[in-house]
């Protein structure tokens, strides 16, 4: 019998643990947590939130599912599976914003049903396609009269501050967040804040004052903690604090792009060159024949080919790109057309690693895996030429992503490669179609190839299953 696999990221809250068994996701519930869970379930909140897609679908199952496999628990829940787990440091601004707003929506609805949340970690938000969903049902607790918003600081560090970083300073949160998995420290963002920003009560309170009070409390912990222990918050004020934060976050936009992502998107997609058409045909034909359910679109840009893959029958596409503008447009496309498409931030030369506690808490992008097919269009040269990664290794990493896929090889004569080489010495004498083909052939069968542009750009369809 297979053993349930413990999710290494689910240890912080002692209320329960997450396990995977036979492709299904289970959550154990401790005795103490079961009390709260039963209350929350009886309130009808869980069902309501699950129906509107705000919280992951959850049902209680016979505990023997896990106990007979050696995991003891007084109560066991089964969750609908999130197809691809992503982390806040892989989200572009609009994803983080959408997740933040959804988190607040969940909190407000919960509070109105007499339920509060024990935390506000961004890792409890996940995306199914472009829809944010809250996944940790054990964070819900029975609301206690006068209790404070326990997750406020965490909400600031993991949602608000990273959004402010981009909205106020034009700095993307991804690298910083990946370096500090708890998010962006309020003390840090307070230090960056120009004085005039404090004319906004939101900035003054959630950033500046919070940082000052935190510093003061750290300087005199006894006084600070005794002061903090007696704080109470009325339910009305609790809810209004959530609502006013939500109103504020709704207004935040990236400093460097503004709200016009949409219009650009419409403008740029009206015209299609012959090359694009040839690529679309090739991709559509491949996806249709491969019957791939999950497709990874590496270097997805604005999601053109992700959409083609979905139209050709893929159930979902996970896109990766390191261009924030492209990711924002991709997300706008996914939302507008209701596509099961999740565009994530990823630097091909430095993908998300295994990290966190014991280097297992957050998984590397390759460990999460799950792709049936990969598309790597106009991507390889950014690594092989742009980042000096040997062509052979680039091919190796792409072929490892999925058993089948389409890789585009961009020749040195192509204007984009010429651009990459414009100000540097050409140290790539072996960057040739035949080197590429040889690298691919040692790892997979080349099913077919097609030249799609005058500059010789070529699509290769590989299959390593037989």
């Amino acid at each position, binding site marked *: 019998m297979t053993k349930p696999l413990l999710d290494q990221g689910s240890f912080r*809250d*002692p*209320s329960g643990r997450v396990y995977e068994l036979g492709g299904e996701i289970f959550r154990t519930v401790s005795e103490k947590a079961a009390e709260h869970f039963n209350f929350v379930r009886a309130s009808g909140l869980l069902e309501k939130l699950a129906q*509107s*897609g*705000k919280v992951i679908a959850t049902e209680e199952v016979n505990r023997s599912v896990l106990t007979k496999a050696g995991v003891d628990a007084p109560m066991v829940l089964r969750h609908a599976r999130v197809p691809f787990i992503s982390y806040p440091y892989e989200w572009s601004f*609009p994803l983080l*914003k*959408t997740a933040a*707003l*959804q988190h607040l*929506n969940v909190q*407000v609805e919960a509070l109105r049903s007499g339920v509060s949340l*024990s935390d506000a970690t961004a890792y409890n938000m996940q995306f199914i396609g472009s829809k*944010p969903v809250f996944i940790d049902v054990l964070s819900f*607790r029975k609301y*206690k009269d006068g*209790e*404070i*918003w*326990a*997750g*406020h*600081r*965490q909400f*600031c560090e993991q949602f608000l501050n990273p959004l402010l970083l981009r909205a106020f300073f034009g700095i993307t949160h991804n690298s910083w967040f990946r370096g500090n998995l708890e998010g962006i420290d309020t003390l840090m963002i307070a230090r960056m804040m120009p004085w005039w920003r404090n004319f906004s*009560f939101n900035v003054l*309170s*959630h950033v500046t*004052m*919070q940082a*000052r*009070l*935190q*510093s*003061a*409390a*750290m300087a005199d*912990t*006894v006084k*600070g*903690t*005794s*002061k*903090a*222990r007696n*704080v*109470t*918050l*009325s339910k*009305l*004020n*609790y809810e*209004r*604090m959530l*609502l*006013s934060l939500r*109103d504020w976050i709704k207004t935040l936009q990236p400093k460097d792009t503004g709200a016009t992502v949409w219009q650009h998107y419409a403008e740029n997609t009206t015209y299609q060159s012959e090359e694009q058409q040839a690529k679309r045909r090739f991709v559509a034909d491949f996806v249709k024949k491969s019957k791939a359910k999950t497709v990874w679109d590496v270097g997805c840009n604005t999601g053109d080919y992700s959409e083609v893959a979905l139209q050709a029958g893929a159930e979902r596409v996970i896109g990766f790109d390191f261009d924030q503008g492209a990711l924002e447009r991709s997300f*706008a496309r996914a*939302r507008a057309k209701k596509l099961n498409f999740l565009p994530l931030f990823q630097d091909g030369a430095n993908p998300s690693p295994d990290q966190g506690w014991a280097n297992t808490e957050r998984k590397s992008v390759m460990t999460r895996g799950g792709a049936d097919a990969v598309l790597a269009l106009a991507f390889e040269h950014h690594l092989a030429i742009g980042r000096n990664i040997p062509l052979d290794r680039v091919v190796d990493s792409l072929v490892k992503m999925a058993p089948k896929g389409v890789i585009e090889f961009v020749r040195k004569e192509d204007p984009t490669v010429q651009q990459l080489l414009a100000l540097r010495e050409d140290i790539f004498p072996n960057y040739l179609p035949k080197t590429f083909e040889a690298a691919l052939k040692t790892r997979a069968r080349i099913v077919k190839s097609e030249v799609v542009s005058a500059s010789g750009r070529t699509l290769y369809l590989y299959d390593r299953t037989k």
Partner: protein
Amino acid sequence: MRKSTILASAAALIFFTSQAHAYLDPGTGSIILQATIAAVASSLFAVKMYWFKLKEMFGMKRVSADQTDDDNT
């Protein structure tokens, strides 16, 4: 720092983390802040809500400061 002070602060830390049934340390700054700003934030929000209602009454804008829709983007 005297030994007794260190002990007292350690004890205080332990006690206050057990408050509000949280496994998470809410952060002293955040808690004291909530005591300080909640009332102000709340009244500001109330004023805003009335303002929106007033605007709506005069047909200036159809917005509500309090919506729990999915319109997130």
